[in-house]
């Protein structure tokens, strides 16, 4: 049975660490749904959030193989406990005629923000789970979507549970 897992990784903030993780996934045939990485408050560490799917055995191998990489300091599988996940999306849509009001309403309903406006175009910022972002794109059917940028998932555990040194 394949399940979606969100793996959070602290790794040494060194050139090449990212390609090591990406290379591991391609070399061993694991799939990556999304991957985000940026430095943390500790400048020597980067934090990566990696979304993947696989059977329990595959996920166990993925975490073991990741732990084997010399630059990986620590990791947790967020989906093993309760957690929060967020993804940022920027969408550029045609906003003319009736769509201009309709899109604005939709943005309000989804608690998004219009962050740039021209005579014919809105640029919208929306944050939420992947499902919510998908639903928003679905709801935009009445107008033309020009481009979509998604950040990939970032995640954090709820409560006391934390990924830190």
């Amino acid at each position, binding site marked *: 049975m394949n399940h979606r897992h969100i793996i959070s990784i602290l*790794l*040494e903030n060194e*050139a*090449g660490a990212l*390609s*090591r993780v990406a*290379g591991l996934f391609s*070399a061993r045939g694991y799939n990556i749904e999304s991957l985000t990485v940026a430095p943390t408050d500790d400048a020597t560490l980067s934090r990566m959030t990696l979304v993947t799917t696989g059977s329990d*055995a595959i996920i*166990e*191998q993925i975490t*073991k*193989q990741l*732990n*084997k990489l*010399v*630059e*990986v*300091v620590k990791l947790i599988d967020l989906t093993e406990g309760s957690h929060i996940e967020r993804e940022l999306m920027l969408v550029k849509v045609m906003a003319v005629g009736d769509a201009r009001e309709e899109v604005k309403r939709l943005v309000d309903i989804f608690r998004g923000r219009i962050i740039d406006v021209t005579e014919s175009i809105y640029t919208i910022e929306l944050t939420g789970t992947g499902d919510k972002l998908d639903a928003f794109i679905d709801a935009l059917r009445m107008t033309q979507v020009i481009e979509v940028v998604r950040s990939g998932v970032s995640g954090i555990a709820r409560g006391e549970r934390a990924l830190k*040194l």
Partner: protein
Amino acid sequence: MELTGAEIVVRCLQDEGIEYIFGYPGGAALHIYDALYQQDKVKHILVRHEQGAAHAADGYARATGRPGVVLVTSGPGVTNAVTGIATAFMDSIPLVVISGQVPLKLIGDDAFQEVDAIGITRPCVKHNFLVKDVRDLASTMKKAFYIAATGRPGPVVVDVPKDITAQKIEYFYPKSLKMRSYSPTRKGHPKQIRRAAELLLTAKRPMIYTGGGVITSAAEAELTELVRLLGYPCTNTLMGLGGYPADDPLFVGMLGMHGTYEANMAMHGCDVLLAVGARFDDRITGDLAKFCPYAKIVHVDIDPSSIGKNVRADVPIVGDARSVMRDLVKVIKEGDVAPDAGALEAWWRQINDWRGVDCLAFDRTSELIKPQFVVEKLYEITGGDAFVTSDVGQHQMWAAQFYKFTQPRRWINSGGLGTMGFGLPAAMGVQLAHPDATVACITGEASIIMCIQELSTCKQYDLPIKIVNLNNRYMGMVRQWQEFFYDRRYSHSYMDALPDFVALAESFGHVGMRIEKPADVEGALRESLGERNRLVFMDFITDQTENVYPMIAAGSGHNEMHLSPDAGEAPQERELA
């Protein structure tokens, strides 16, 4: 005192106690070569191709347990070494490979002899480093040796841009090292060890299966004690040969695709399996769905990712083989439970029935030289005391089957990657490490050609390797598969236009012999071993039709072996306890 980067590289090698490095100079490595020239502690062995350097360092590492060191230049220097790096990676051999790189400011410009060495080697190293600041050079070298040699060992590449090797800085080599992101587990969990001991003592049909991890951790004494304490049968993987003395009655031979009948049948029939320092590789397990159908499995390995990768373990133990087996022996000795003597006796009766098949039998009346006979004679004449390297193919399997290794680090072969061309350069590293030992390279005419240039290196450094070329004028293992599975369509497996190996050896300044009759085998081997100071290339013209038996074909289980026509009938199976 301030040293240049090049001098720092060499000083680091000295401070690590490195005796030999294997390499080939070129533009980006010239500063380092200049620093090498001005000292005499670290001896440089000039190979004839960088693949040879990596294999030679690898052979040195396998024969000594100490890291092998390679020095190559940028571009083709490092790409040529990749096969050797991957070979060491697959077999968990500690190597430190220093590669020259174009100057930092030229990286990315497609400069002359530039290649992304870090990118190219990334999938086949334990770790790699690009040194971007001379201040990091010494600590990076320290990390490289530390990572290469600890935990599950492996190759580490240090890529050093040429300008870094010219810059000067105060030299400081750290004595020890702690890395927050790397600290291998050594000790097994006590609770798991107790569970393992309990399970082992419930066994009615036990089996102990060990691999290269026993060799790496120098756990041969602990393994021998454990096996003898329990009285259980023991089998070794190709990489694990020598971990348990092959002449001991509790040893049932190698297991796997070309393992013995008794080892594979016992694997199939066992109810408790103890696996130590082995990774359930596909050449061991055959079809996973049919693997060890009755067994509860204890798996001991220092690499957590080896456990549960191919085969689920009932009792996983992460730890060093030596430490875990020592603890296991202690727990068993302290407890009051003994192995089930009755069940064990019945199990050994069954195993001895299987042994009665004599699965390694071959035709001893043939007028052609049987390759098995050559290996058997080499074993007899050397008293089992030689270091034996091999290439890859039929000869490798015959060497593993017929040379009975009683000590670790004597059997040196490319098990995981299966690299033809490994045997001769590896033998150079072994001979340098053990100058007075007999070092034999058992090879075939197809493999030996792949790194034949190293005959020149052997001449330069007077390495008296004994090359046992089992020449059947075929890529034997390819031919065997084509015979069995491709209806005898021998597609491109025939070695046409072979050289005259005797003349070839002589042209490099060595002794060449051609042996064509079984009656001449022993004499040739004795004569060759008598040549203490010279390399002898023995070209044995062998039976072209000989196959390696037993064989587990792809998709088969351990109880579905092809037996040799020369072996006995498979016995009636006893009722298992």
